[in-house]
Every structure is written in structure tokens, then in C-alpha cells.
């Protein structure tokens, strides 16, 4: 079974040039884009690129192996009974075996202990996940049917971008489009304008929604939280330095017709590159007249739109 493994493996299986919107956009801004990553192997959780996601993966594997251990014992006892105590093999039932307080206490206590073993590290992790203080960068992320808006705060205050499904995917995903999704780069996982964040910085998202409930999720960050109208939910992630690249996720709460078509793409750059990007964005905000190149985020002015 060959499961195509995120971006890296697609690069191998299809030796096409990286002509994605993100890459073009980043290249235009003079930012080197690292090979983008999705650390899932196609059948398990990704280890991810944040401390939290790695801890989630470790806890997931720990719980998984505990379950496997219990399964071996319980299924082993069942299979042993089914083989050993078959009527066709002449087994005679021991009808006096009605109950045993001793074993029942044992098999009530042992699961409780196992659960405590799982619950303690889980509780510690929850404390860490919920601690969104001391963020280096805050961004307000708003869900819409069917796009995301990112409004930067702090040092990047004023930058405001809408992130929608990239056009090649949007054409290919139409019913009877005649376009093979396998020929589209990052099918359904590409946007026109990605969220750009610095590595090594605690990035805090303030999530809300303008219509229905959405959920922001990037598996590689171990970050998922609902965006609910009337609420502001906090979510934070801190990508390891050296793990710069493009990370992808999807809306994770059914939000209507195009729920499958509002991906999340995060471009993680070095803090220096981020400063450059912020300066560049702000410069474009100040000089709307320079628009005409389509890379800017500022909406065109009335003067530009109206016929002269």
C-alpha cells in the first residue's frame, strides 16, 4: 500500500516544479521556502513540529500500546477459551463457576490503575496546552463560510488577509470538472494567501466566527480549536526553529456546503524573514497606488477601480 505522504512524498512521486501559489508568493517576497512538510506517515498521527504535537504523539503512542497490551490479554483469554473449551473437542462446562468476588475486585482495580497512569500525563499536558500567556505574536483568526481571515496584532498590527482555497483546486473540485485531482498541486490543501508566522515564537490565535461554527486545525502543530460566533477561543503553537516550511490543515467542524474547501495553510519562516515580510506588507499598506501587482493585501482604492 503506497500512501502518498504529504508534500515531501508528492515531490518524489511527481517530479514537477514547485509552482504552488505559496511558493510563487514567497519567491516574489524573496523568502526561501523550505521543503514543506506533513509529518504524518499516512496511517498514524504526525509527530509534528511543535513541542505540544510531539508530546501528543508520544501520549497517543503510549495509550495505543497500553490498549494493545490489554487487547493481547483479553483477546488472548477469549481466543484461548474458544480453542480450548470447544464442545466439538469434548469440553464439559463447569456450571459451578458462578462468580468470584476476588477476581471481580482484581479486574475492577487494575483498569482503574491503568486509567490513572494514562490520566496523569494527560492532565499535565492539558495545563500546558491551556497556558496561552506570554505570546510573541497574536493573530485574530475568523472563520467564514468558507474562508479564513487573519488579522495580525502586536508588531504586525494592521496586516489583514483573507485566505481562500487556491484557484486550481477550486476549479478541479467542481462536480464533473474533468480535472484529475492528482494533477493539482496540494489538491484542496492550498490557499491563495497563507498565514505567515515566525518559527521559535509563541503564536497565539484568537479564534472566532462570523457565521457558523468552524474549527482551525493544523495536525503538525497539534493545534485544533473551534471558531464559534460570539466566542473568542485561544489556541497557541510554537514551531521549532529549523522547522520552517509550509504546513497544512483543514476546517474541522462541519460548516455547510463547502466545509471541505476551506483549508488552512501556514507558512513558517525564520523570525528575520518574518520581519521582512511584515515590513513588506506594511509598505504595501501604505502605498496602495503601487498596487497593480496582485501580490498586495490592500484592497484597491475607489480611484483605481472607477474608470477614469
Amino acid at each position, binding site marked *: 500500500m503506497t500512501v502518498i*505522504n504529504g508534500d515531501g512524498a508528492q515531490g518524489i512521486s511527481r517530479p514537477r516544479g514547485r509552482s504552488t501559489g505559496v511558493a510563487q508568493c514567497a519567491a516574489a517576497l524573496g523568502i526561501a521556502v523550505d521543503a514543506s512538510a506533513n509529518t504524518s506517515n499516512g496511517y498514524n498521527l504526525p509527530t509534528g513540529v511543535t513541542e505540544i504535537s510531539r508530546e501528543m504523539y508520544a501520549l497517543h503512542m503510549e495509550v495505543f500500546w497500553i490498549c494493545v497490551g490489554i487487547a493481547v490479554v*483479553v483477546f488472548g483469554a477469549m481466543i484461548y477459551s474458544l480453542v480450548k*473449551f470447544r464442545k466439538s473437542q469434548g469440553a464439559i*462446562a463447569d456450571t459451578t463457576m458462578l462468580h468470584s468476588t476476588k477476581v*471481580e475486585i482484581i479486574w475492577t482495580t487494575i483498569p482503574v490503575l491503568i486509567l490513572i497512569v494514562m490520566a496523569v500525563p494527560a492532565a499535565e499536558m*492539558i495545563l500546558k496546552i491551556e497556558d496561552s500567556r506570554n505570546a510573541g505574536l497574536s493573530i485574530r483568526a475568523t472563520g467564514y463560510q468558507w474562508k479564513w481571515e487573519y488579522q495580525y496584532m502586536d508588531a504586525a498590527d494592521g496586516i489583514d488577509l483573507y485566505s481562500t482555497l487556491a484557484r486550481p483546486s477550486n476549479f478541479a473540485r467542481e462536480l*464533473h470538472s474533468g480535472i484529475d485531482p492528482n494533477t493539482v498541486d496540494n489538491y484542496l490543501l492550498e490557499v491563495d494567501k497563507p498565514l505567515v508566522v515566525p518559527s521559535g515564537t509563541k503564536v497565539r490565535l484568537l479564534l472566532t466566527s462570523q457565521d457558523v461554527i468552524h474549527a482551525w486545525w493544523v495536525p503538525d502543530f497539534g493545534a485544533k480549536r473551534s471558531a464559534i460566533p*460570539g466566542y473568542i477561543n485561544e489556541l497557541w503553537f510554537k514551531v521549532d526553529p529549523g522547522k520552517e516550511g509550509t504546513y497544512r490543515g483543514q476546517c474541522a*467542524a462541519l460548516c455547510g456546503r463547502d*466545509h471541505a474547501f476551506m483549508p488552512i495553510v501556514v507558512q513558517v519562516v525564520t523570525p528575520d524573514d518574518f520581519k521582512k515580510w511584515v515590513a513588506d506588507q506594511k509598505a504595501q499598506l501604505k502605498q496602495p497606488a503601487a498596487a497593480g501587482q496582485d501580490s498586495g493585501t490592500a484592497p484597491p482604492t475607489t480611484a483605481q477601480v472607477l474608470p477614469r
Partner: protein
Amino acid sequence: MPAAEAAHVTHEHHDEPAKGIARWLFATNHKDIGTMYLVFSLIMFFVGGAMAMVIRAELFKPGLQLVQPEFFNQMTTNHALIMIFGAVMPAFVGLANWMIPLQIGAPDMALPRMNNFSFWILPFAFTLLLSTLFVPGGAAAGGWTLYPPLSLQTGDAFPMLIFAIHMLGASSIMGAINVIVTIMNMRAPGMNLLKMPLFCWSWLITAYLLIAVMPVLAGAVTMLLTDHYFGTSFFNAAGGGDPVMFEHIFWFFGHPEVYIMILPAFGIISEIVPTFSRKPLFGATSMIYATASIAFLSFIVWGHHMFVDGMPLAAQLFYMMSTMLIAVPTGVKVFNWTATMWKGSISFEPPMLFALSFLFLFTIGGFSGVMLAIVPIDFQYNQTYFVVAHFHYVLVPGAVFAIMASVYYWLPKWTGHMYNMALAKWHFWLSTIFVNVLFFPQHFLGLAGMPRRIPDYAVQFTDWNMVSSIGAFGFGLSQILFVIVILQCARGGAKASALVWDGARPTGLEWTLPSPAPYHSFTTAPNVE
């Protein structure tokens, strides 16, 4: 007294079922009503299954090939509503109707006319629900959980859906009242509660769950209705309401609802495993306490459906721990079933095969349930195919296989004929193999990052989706064998003895009656020593 004699004669006359359609329309006999429930549930199983086939066909390949996204969402929403309220719940009510009077030595259900009413609501409710597929705006497409604000975007289907849910709730509550009144008042002399078969016990507890939570669902959907049409703002943030409050109310219903669909299954397995192990149930009393504990815990765990919606720290810890605690009584049940087989004399008739499949596969669903309870990793699993795999493992090889096991167990008692064992075994093997091909890869999809409820997906999810779809088609087709076995058995076949499973000598009052069970059974109460 001549009047009494005359009444007696008329009564004798009614020992025969009424002729024609009147027998069914005006049915008050628990067996007739039970049969109608079971047939209705089987039809709904195929209707909901057809919707599942549309879903899996669309997901066979990336890209949209067959249906528009809005229709896909209608399919997922209505598949869930129909399978839960139309297939699984009515099947258990049908089994309760058939078996509770036979197992406790009662002549009928306590409230036969209400019994008729609670069944006949269902065809109308589902006609209404299914007709929403043809109204402007299409059927409900916001998921069976009906979360606002999305569910408020439903078109003309919206009030129809809510009225259908009210009807289903009324039907369920009436069915539950009937079960409780029957069990509390109509047990044969000498049958105290602790002597009562486990199936009746699990249904008694389930009935209390139903009465406790169906009104909550009714309240929740009524608030949706007034938000939509009467200008209230229960869940509308712009009007000072709270969309998350709906989730709390819904899951206060929704989590006990999960146990409403599995506790009667536990009861069935507790009947079948001892029979074919030729050994009494191990720890019968602790089984009852375990069932009651699960029922109690089911009321205090609902928040685990909402971890990603943002929740105070204390609430996250509380819901995580209370949810994990459910694993303890559930584990006790699995261990007791295993201990029942231990030193038994096991044979593998179709009911036992399905019960064994239940034991293994439901336990897998239990493992993924524990994983989902753990908040930090739930953040990764939640709203992905991992969740879809989890609840389908507990509902399909869990609840549905238990229903099939019970049909294969009691069908000869109902019809008086043995069924085609070879065909039933084919049905078992094909179902068990395909159900795993269908749902096991969905664990991988979820872990690899595929969200649930999407009609189209990124290309790295292609392979496991294909496998899952092939499993779905195989599983769907295998169920045709089930219908064939049942129809053949209803028409004829080798005569079944009173015990049906002579080699296994099942215990319980239902086996003291001839097969088929007479139209009116236990007109004189049997004595239980």
C-alpha cells in the same frame, strides 16, 4: 355468571389473530407489534444503508464524481438520523416487545394500545423525515447533531425535521413507559428483579435513560424552532444567545443516547454467550450493577464531545476522568463474558458467532473510546475519521451485530422454523470481514488527518478511502443474505423444538413455550421457583 362466560368466549375467539390488514393496523398483541417494529427497522436499515453507499461511492476517489457537496451533507445527516432513530432504536423496541413478556412470564405488554400508537407514529415520522429530501433547499445537511447556527440554515426541511424528531421522541418515550410498567407490574410470581433475565434488566435501565433524555432533545429542537421562526435568541450570539449552550443540551441527550443504543445489546450478549457456552453467566449480579453504573456515568460525561470547543480547565479534567471511568464497568462486562466462556463447552451457531464478533469488535471500539477521552490527544482525533471509525465500531459490530445475533437466536422461537444455518454463517463471515475492511482503515484516515463530513479529500487519503468503500459495498451487499435467511425462515423450514437450541439447553421462560410461541402466551402466569 353468563356475562362473564360470554366475555370468556369472546376472549377465546380472539386467540386467533385478526384477518388482513386490520391485524396490523389495530394490533395490540405484543408479538405483532414487535414484528412490525423489527420489519420497520430492517427497512430503515436498508434506507440508511443506501445513503451510506452514496457517501462511500462519492468518497471512493478524490474529486467530486457523483453528487454535489450539499447533497453529500444531506446524506451524512440523514444516514445518521435514520440509522439511530429508524434502525437501531426501533429494533431494540421490537425485541423488547417480543421478548420481555416471554421472559418475565407476562401475557402481553402492560399498555397494548399505547404500544400500537408508539409503533404507528414511526412510519409517519420517517415519511415526513424522508420527504424533506424533496423540498426546496433539500433535507437537513448540518449533521445529525443539528448544531446551530448551521442547522438554522436548513431550508423548508427544517420544521419538518423538528416535527419528525418530536414524533420519534414521543414514540420512544411511550415505548420506554411500556417497558417499565410491564417489567415492574407483570413479572410472574416468584420472579424477583434479581432473577430477571439480563436482557430485561438492560432494557429496564435503558427505558429510564430514554425517559430522562428524550424530553431534553425535544426541548433543544424546540428552541431551535423558536430561534428560526419566532425571533428568540437561545443560540444566536448576535441576540445574546449562546451556540455552545445547544451543544451542552444536545449532548446531555446525546451521550445517554449512545448507551440507549448499546445497553440492550449488552443484555442480548449476556443471554447468548451463556447459552452457547453451556454455562450460567459469570457474575450476573455484577453485570447488573455494571449496567446501572454505565447508565449513571452516561449522564455526566457529555462534555467530552466538546473538548475542542473551548472549556474551562476543571471541566476538561472532569469530563476526561468521568469518561475514562466508564471503561471500568464496561471492562467488567467484557471480563465477565470472557469468564462465562472460560471452562465452558462452546459451540458456534450463528447467534454465538455474531456475539463473539461483538465481543472482539466492540472492545476495539472501546479502546478507541478511551483514547478519545484523553483530552490532549482528543484535540488531534476530534472531528476526524478516527471518531467515525470509533463510533461505527461500537454501533455496527456493536449494536447492529447484537441485534442480528438476537434475531438468529430467537427467530426459530418466533416463526417455529429453523433457518438456513449455512446461509446465516455466510452472512456472518461476510459481514465480519467486510465490516473491518470498511471501518478499520478509517482509523488510519483520521490519524493521518482526514476530517469527517467532507465529500472530497486531499489525494494522500485516496488509498484507505478506496479500501473503506470496497468494504462498504461488500458489507451492504452481504446484508441481502440476512433478508433471504429471514424470509425463508418465515415461510417454512425444519420444525423448531421448544428449546430451539436443544444441544445448548438455553434457560429462561421463553424456552418453556412451544415454537412458534402461541399468539397469546402465559395467559396463566407461570411459577418461578
